[in-house]
Every structure is written in C-alpha cells, then in structure tokens.
C-alpha cells in the first residue's frame, strides 16, 4: 500500500527556518526591535525584496495560486515594483511561497488549498513585515540614548537645601498623601465660599464676632 509520504523536516532548506513563531514559552524568542529604525524618516524602503511562488499547473491544491497569478499578480507587481516576483511551476507539488527580506531572512510558507483572497492577504502581511523573526519584545522601545538624565545616583532630583539641614527634618519627613482628604477638600471649599446650605453647629465665638 502506498502511504502518505511525509516530507522530513530536514528537507526544508536551512535558511527558511530563520523566522520563528512565538512558540511555547520554553523556546520563545525574546529581544528588542532590530529593524532599521531610521527607515521612513527620509524615505520608506519596503523590506520585502522578492517573492517566489511554486505551484502546479494541474493540481487541485494549487487552484487558488493559479487564480491569483491569473488575476492579481500583475497588479501586485505594478503597485510594488520594488518586489521581484518569481513564478516556478512544479508538476505535482504543493504550492508554496518563499518571501525574502533585505536583512537576509526568508520565510517559507505552505499555500495548500488556499483561495485567491487568502493568498492576497498573506502576501500583504508578508510585504509589510520587516523580516525580523516574530518575538516577544522585552521592552516596547529601543533607543541609542540609554538614559537622558544620565546614570542614576542617590542625589537625583534632591533639592539643594538638604545639604545644609540637619536630619531628621520636619518639612522633609512630613507625610504628603497623593490625594486630598475629605476634610481638606471641605475646608478649601469653605474658604472659597463655594460651600453653601450647610449647618454650622460648632461655631466658635471668634467666628461669631
């Protein structure tokens, strides 16, 4: 009996492994953005440099790819002339797409049984990527200035009068709460005169005078 021939994992060229998925936690890639961050300050350069479609001219699984080539591939290369598109008809093979990026990475993708619109969406997704492997960002920013304030020291933002005061100091040591208390708010309102219709029960003699 002729069984299903499973292509062994090592049959895929090595450079197609470069873009990893998020993966499970143990093999998760993490890091910072490494793309050319000056890109777009002057002119934007699309990081996708070439796409290769392999497909079969007869097979059912390549139907979507064939339709895509018939209707949309010319429009795609007109809109994005910076991307070179190669078409490789291969008899009795599953259709695939290989996208190569300016940073040297490439991504292999299976297009088996995909429809035309699905392929369009995937191609658009690949075009707008930087070619960097998908990874968890340890920080969402990256900068060449490690610290704008300079290296931290214990005296950062400390007022200079502390130099000549003896500690403990009442003014420095007083507790300052983030929010105003209800009593404080009421007192302020009373001072402004915005507080009306309130019964003054404990009115001192000084106030009466």
């Amino acid at each position, binding site marked *: 009996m*002729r*069984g299903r*021939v*499973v292509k*062994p*994992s*090592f049959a895929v060229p*090595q450079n197609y492994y470069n873009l990893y998925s998020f993966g499970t936690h143990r093999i998760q890639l993490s890091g910072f953005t490494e793309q*050319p*961050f*000056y*890109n777009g*300050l*002057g*002119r934007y*350069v*699309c990081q996708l*440099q*070439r796409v*290769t479609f392999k497909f079969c001219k007869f097979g059912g699984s390549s139907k979507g790819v064939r339709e895509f080539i018939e209707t949309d591939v010319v429009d795609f290369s007109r809109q994005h*002339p*910076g*991307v*070179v598109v*190669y078409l*490789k008809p291969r008899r009795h093979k599953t259709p695939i797409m290989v996208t190569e990026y*300016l*940073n*040297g990475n490439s991504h292999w993708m299976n297009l088996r049984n995909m429809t035309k619109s699905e392929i369009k969406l995937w191609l658009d997704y690949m075009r707008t990527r930087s070619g960097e492997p998908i990874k968890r960002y340890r920080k969402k920013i990256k*900068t*060449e*200035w490690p610290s*704008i304030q*300079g*290296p931290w*020291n*214990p*005296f950062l933002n*400390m007022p*200079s009068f502390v*130099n000549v005061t003896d500690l403990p100091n009442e003014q420095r040591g007083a507790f300052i709460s983030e929010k105003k208390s209800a009593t404080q708010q009421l007192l302020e309102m009373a001072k402004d005169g915005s507080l009306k219709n309130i019964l003054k029960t404990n009115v001192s003699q000084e106030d009466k005078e």
Partner: protein
Amino acid sequence: MATILRNVNAAKNIRDLLKKSIEHCTRSERGLKRWQVDTLRVMYWRAQSYDAIPHPERHRREWQNWNYKSELFAFSQRLSEKFSEEMLRVCFTDKSYVEKEDEQRKELGMPEIELRTENNSELAAIGTNKLTPFIKSYLRYFLKNVPEECISAVHNYLMSDTVLADIASKIGCTQLILCNAINPSDEVKAQVLRALIGALMKEKGEKHTEKFIIDFILTYINDQDIMEVWNLPQAEIALSNVLKNNGITEYEPRLLRESGRNTIYACFMVGMYVDKKLIGFGSGETVSIAREMAAYDALRRMFKLTPASTLFKFGKDAYNIDFGSSSQEYSLLNEWKLLDLDRKHQLKSIS
C-alpha cells in the same frame, strides 16, 4: 536492505551516505518506511551536531529564481529613484570582480580578449567628493555651537565603512554586488554606496543627490548621542581651554554631595562653578571621575548637545534648506569661543 548496504559501501562520506539513503527511501516503490524515517532523522541531526561537514557557501545568483536585470530594476524602484540599468551595473561591479574575471581568462588561455567592464571606483570618487562637503555643511547648519572637531568626528563616523555598509545592506545592495567573494566585505559595500551617490550626481544632478543623502545617510545620526560619537578626550582640560578663550581664567570644581566614602558604593557629585554660578555637574565613584563628568556636562551644555537641543531635520522638511550657507569651517577647540550674543545665556547657572 541489500540496496542500502550497497549504497553504504559506495558512499564517500556521511553526507553522501545520507543523500543516497534518503534517495533510496523516497524512491522505493513501497514508500518511506517508519523505521527508516527515525533512523535517518537521528543520523541527520548527528551530522548537524558534531561530525558535520559545512555546506559550501553559494551566492544567491546560483539559484534558478534569479534574474539580475529585474533585480536591478526593483532596486531602483525600491529607493524611488530612476537609475539607468547600465549605470547600476557599473555601480555594483567591484574592482576585485574585474580582476578575477581577467585572471580566469588568462588561465583559460585567452588573455587577448579583455573584459570591457568598468568598475565603480571612479563613481565612488565622485560620490565621496559630494558626500564630504555636504555632510559637513548639513551638520554645521544644525549644530551651531560646536567646534570643528565635533563636525569632522561625526562626519568620519557617517563615512566609516561600517556605517555605510550597514546602510547599503539595508537598502538591498548585498546580493547584487559583483565581487570576488560570496559575502562582500564592509569595504566593498561602502564603496558601492558611494558609487551609487556618484551615479546620481552624474545622472540627476546635485540637488537630487542631496535629497538622497539626506534621506538615506544623514538619517543614521537620528537618536545618536553626538558627544559619544565625538568621544572627546580629557574633558576638564578642554573645558579650561574653552573658558580661557572666553576670558575666564578661573573655574571652581566643588564637591556638591557625597555618599558612602570608602565603600564600594561610593558616590560623589561635583559641580563646576564660574563666578559662583553652576555651569555643569556630574557624578562618579571617585572624585576625579566625578570631576571629569562635571566638565563633560558643562561642555555638553556649552556646545548645546543635550538631547533636547540636538534637533535635526530629515526628509521633506530638509529638502529646501540652503545648506550652502553653512559651508564655512568653524574654529577649532583650542580657539573656540562662545557666540557673543548669547554668552550670558550660555553661561547661566543651572537651577
């Protein structure tokens, strides 16, 4: 099994063996057997891990899906420029490639037929002649309070092979270059980028080239610390010189704060004073380091190289600026003075 054994005997090395056995498995009439898959997989990873023979490196052009003409077309479209194809071919041809081709011809016994290909060295020379003055005048336009050493240091950084090669590879030059190696070196890549600028000078003129330089080369200094690029040595001596040039002979470094003396967590903070006004301060683990850092900070404030005040313009905002007005060289650090108009402002104390 017999065929496998025959193959094993015929195989020259482990890679050959693997290839032959994989071929056997995949082409056999009965298809791939489960036990063979497992064995082959183990053999493959062993070959990868320790007794691996490295794959021979191959250039991208050796693959079937490679059309140099359309790659060149896509290259110029990617940058939204209109290079002519002939010019691009010259730009991407390194000197080493032509020499290699000539040698090959000699070996084949036909030295009379000379290879009539130009290399990019002439165009690169044109490019360098444009780049150097333009980068300097651009920097002078935005950094008005620095000595000439700073300008030339940043210029040297931008024109260094590592920076130019990085830019060249990020716009997609690497695989298009024709040279004697498979992976072109930084020098070769930088040469190609300079040649591209030379080609633009020849084809499109000066104004167009300037736009290209602003967009692709000068954007590299965005978000960079100029003082760090400059790497000014001996800040305190430099500070005393600068103050002397401005008629200030005395400055006073004072210990502002200290903590944890004689421990590994020692921290000292030194401030630089002129006329009892604080002009800069810095901290460090010893007094001498803190003093140096304070001088460095004072200089940074004088040269206006703080992150808030180094503001460059890129892209369309910078296209119409007349950079020719700032082509005059600044004075060197030994003779550098604060601008008269805002001397008071620049030496004001820091609150």
